[in-house]
């Protein structure tokens, strides 16, 4: 392993350790904000593997967040413990992704994006109307944890942190693997990928299942954390939009991009909210436009370009 890599791994471990101990120095409010950041990072990674690496934008991915949340809510209302419900939620989401994915992933990018929006809206409508099971449009509650509030939010902080670390690590190893090359080839040139022996439908479906897995667990944690969820909230199209923007600003197709992006966006939202309350929609819109125009490759991409250009310049100097 090169020295560079060793240094990077060391730095990352330090970062994780720092995060673990961070809550001691922060108010409850900020602990909750950072927990939300971790959560958005996870959802953004789900978008990242599909769009950043594979080139298929799952605009409706929030549906897995909602499915995770609701299966957890329903399961716990039947008395199942949290740790049992979470795998159930994940499995449900994965099943949805496979059943819905198989027919739709055969088609190309545009249709997939629209189809996911349609699916998400349809599922939302079903949840809103199936009042006996889901509590309908008014939402549903989950068991409240019988501990002091600070214990509770620290617990969820660590849980979300763990989820984010696991998701990011998993993605890292997946992308380096043979399967990862398959995914990237689909984005690069799907026709060529097919002719090279890559079963593209298989790759697309599995990628979406992976995306569903992590997104739904985030939803499950969210539901238990909030103790109360409503359909409009967990199936909100803005979740998808925000996480897409997070992926873009952090850098699509990079492993750390979504994490960086989540920090940037959420922290900006914190700062800007009070200042721009009446204009927050427009401000978000303008931010999106600015990102696309000036930083289309996101933070990681732009840094990457910068490093490459420096290497070229240094190289030129040396060769002369």
């Amino acid at each position, binding site marked *: 392993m090169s020295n560079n890599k060793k240094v990077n791994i060391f730095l990352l471990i330090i970062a994780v350790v720092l995060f673990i101990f961070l809550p001691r120095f922060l108010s409850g409010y900020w602990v909750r904000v950072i927990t939300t950041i971790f959560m958005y990072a996870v959802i953004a990674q789900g978008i990242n593997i599909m769009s950043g690496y594979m080139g298929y934008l799952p605009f409706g991915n929030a549906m897995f967040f909602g499915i995770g949340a609701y299966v957890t809510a329903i399961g716990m209302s039947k008395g199942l413990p949290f740790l049992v419900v979470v795998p159930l939620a994940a499995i449900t989401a994965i099943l949805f992704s496979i059943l819905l994915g198989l027919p739709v992933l055969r088609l190309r990018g545009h249709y997939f994006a629209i189809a996911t929006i349609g699916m998400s809206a349809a599922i939302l409508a079903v949840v809103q109307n199936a009042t006996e099971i889901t509590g309908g449009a008014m939402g549903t509650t989950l068991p409240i944890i019988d501990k002091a509030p600070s214990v509770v939010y620290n617990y969820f902080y660590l849980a979300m942190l763990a989820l984010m670390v696991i998701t990011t690590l998993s993605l890292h190893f997946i992308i380096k693997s043979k399967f990862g090359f398959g995914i990237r080839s689909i984005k690069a040139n799907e026709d060529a990928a*097919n002719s090279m*022996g890559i079963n593209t439908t298989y790759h697309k479906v599995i990628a979406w299942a992976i995306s569903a897995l992590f997104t739904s667990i985030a939803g499950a944690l969210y539901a238990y954390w909030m103790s109360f969820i409503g359909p409009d909230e967990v199936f909100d199209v803005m979740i998808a939009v925000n996480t897409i923007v997070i992926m873009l600003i952090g850098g699509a197709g990079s492993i750390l991009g979504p994490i960086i992006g989540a920090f940037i966006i959420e922290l900006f939202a914190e700062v800007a909210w009070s200042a721009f309350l009446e204009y927050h929609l427009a401000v978000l819109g303008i931010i999106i436009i600015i990102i696309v125009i000036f930083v289309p490759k996101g933070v990681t991409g732009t840094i990457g370009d910068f490093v490459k250009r420096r290497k070229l310049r240094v190289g030129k100097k040396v060769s002369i």
Partner: protein
Amino acid sequence: MGENSTILQIKNLSKHFGALKAVDEVSFEVKKGEIVGLIGPNGAGKTTLTNLVNGTYPKTEGKVLFKDLDISNLKPYQIARIGLTRTYQVVKPLTGMTVEENVLVGSLFGRENRDSEMKNASKRAREIIKLVGLESKKDSLVSDITLPDLKKMEFARVLAMEPEVIFLDEVMAGLNPIEVEEASILVKEVRQEKDLSIVYIEHIMKAVMGISDRIVVLHHGRKIVEGTPQEVVNDPAVVEAYLGKRYAKGIKEVNNEG
């Protein structure tokens, strides 16, 4: 299977786009180890034929047999895994990736039942890159290399799949005469070393002549002639297809006199 047995059989292959018969009942065979040139003027149906054989287009009619296995209804990735591959007339590099990564993908996927573990696949990829002479460019992004290198890369990519049959689709397009010469030598060397069967698609006669064992000529989607390079080059039907009736008459007269 014996030394000169048939590895690929194309039987009555047809592709109709509405009223247009892009490929019209074409049949021929490829023996193991052969280089079969597939020529014809532009629009003769050569690339369409390739797309039919490799599963990219559905067939209107006809069958394709690979080592006696009917592959007519298989998907492109399945056909690739069995050992039949192709390159593209307009190269299709995996954009955003380096040369080495492109070849690696071929090495990882490609023919089934091989060791596709990352380490060994990487080794294989690097060997092939060396073989085609792209070693100095292996870390370059495909967007940064020249056309001849792109063609070499696509060739390397296909070789990394360890196929038994390769359809090289107009691999010379866009190359200058020196590059064409180099490419021809490379193809011959590789064929020797790797014991491949190649269907060599070109519309430039000269490139194909020196390299093919046999030639199949297409015109307006139909096979008009099949034979050795010598036979084909003197065939009036072929000359007519390329140069028109008046030249063909000239050849006929020469043949009658000689």
